[in-house]
């Protein structure tokens, strides 16, 4: 509950973190896909998903 409250009070910071998570994970996904590294691909898609969940938690 406290974490969600903090997220909602710091919208800009959360958007910044979410955006950086999405951009960096996408860039790294390309090299993981080229190598065929499936665990890394799942992990990086997970980062992208996390970025979006963070944004949803912010009002």
């Amino acid at each position: 509950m406290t974490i969600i409250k903090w997220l909602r009070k710091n919208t800009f910071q959360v958007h910044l973190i979410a955006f950086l998570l999405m951009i960096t994970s996408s860039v790294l996904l390309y090299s993981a896909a080229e190598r065929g590294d499936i665990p890394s691909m799942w992990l990086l898609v997970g980062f992208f998903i996390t970025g979006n969940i963070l944004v949803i938690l912010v009002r």
Partner: protein
Amino acid sequence: MHFFLALLPILIILVLMVGLRWGAARAGGAGYLSALLLALLYFGADVRLLAYAHTKATLLSLDVLLIIWAAFLLYRVADEAGAIRTIGLALPHLTADRGMQALIIGWVFASFLQGVGGFGVPVAVIAPLLVGLGFAPLQAVVIPSIGHGWAVTFGSLGSSFQALMASSGLPGEMLAPDSALFLGISAILVGFLVAHAAGGSRATFRLVTPVLILALVMGLTQYLVAVARLWNIAAFSGGMLGLLVGIPLARKYKGEAEEREALVLKSLAIALSGYVILIAITLAVQLVPGIGKFLGQVVIRLEFPELVSALGHLTPAGPGRSIPLFRHPGAILTYSSIIAFLIYKKAGLYQPNAAKRIIKGTIEKVMSSSVSIASMVAMAVIMEHVGMIEILAQGLANSMGMAFPLVAPWIGALGAFMTGSNTNSNVVFGALQVRTAELLNYQAALILAGQTAGAGLASVMAPTKIVVGASTAGMAGREGDVMRQLLVYTGLLVLLISVLTMASVLLENNNLWW
């Protein structure tokens, strides 16, 4: 069932934004997550397909975001120096005629501001200006809202048009002529609607001549500049030339003169210098081959393999979006911002720590839209790669058939209303419109012109923009009044685009187009 599930991410965004009033960033995140889940669980995506789709989406997002970031930077550079205020204060000096003030400030100046800034800036800047001139608050919000709609697609220094190119995969040379033509024609109706909002039918009939002259100048300029491949300055050039023609024109409609401060031409010239720099740099990069070639040496470009979903949907191999880092419109805007900053600084227009405030203000303002674009583009690219767009296009083609050109602009308008921007609407619906046009054997450029023109004109009544406009004119809490009035005006404009799209398709299919 396939069709409904393919439509679900778009429906989720619509319900969350319109029904539950979520912001574009939150709703975009929910749309992305739903598309990802559906792609994995129902439409046969594997992690390799998702990995490449995410990278492609990020390239597309960066292509659009570089312009949005730099366009807002240039706006902040000018605004911090007081340049926008100086230009705005100079305009009421020209005429005391209410109708003419509405045309020059609420239409021409609003279009100019949309050309250079966008992001709700025209209404936010102009509504208080019109209230100060004695317009009713409702008029003060409605006039600039309608007035800048025709300049949205090529406005914000071309970001919505860039999104249209990115999402459709079609070159700007193919898309620009029809889009600029439809928007140019809509500018005539926009002018009359602005005159009507300012003074009813009497003002509309009285101002026929200036409306036609200004619409012709702005619409034709935007068309010619866009066709010359300078789409990032097309709306801006239209607005700029509109101001140059509108100033002497306004003097013919002086009305009852009032006492005002003397107009300082030197201040006005300095205020406009930042934008003159932008024109000069853009022309130099586009027209001097040596400069363009030199700046175009560093290109971000990735090759993607052929991808097939478990359900058999095939995405052919090929390069993703290429980004020429130092020749990109975003880079050109950044060079212009730096030079404009130095000019304004030399003229002593900045308070201490201006650079810090400009950068901080820019980053804070663009972050939310950056997140929403990243999410929505990822959603659209995933949907495309697993065949969801194809299913939607098939469904639309089967159900709409010959009437599809009439519906295409309303799809764009709906997208802009629900996502709050022409850019987002083009991202979400661009590929769908192209595929449906292909299935029905219609020229994709015409359908996309309908999409982006409908989206641009309807973007002015997105709830987020109305809230900003109403708050700056002291109408907070009365957003419903603004929405009701805009609904009629915007409906007429999208209807016009709908008829234009259908007529163009019929002419094209019967080889009657000149």
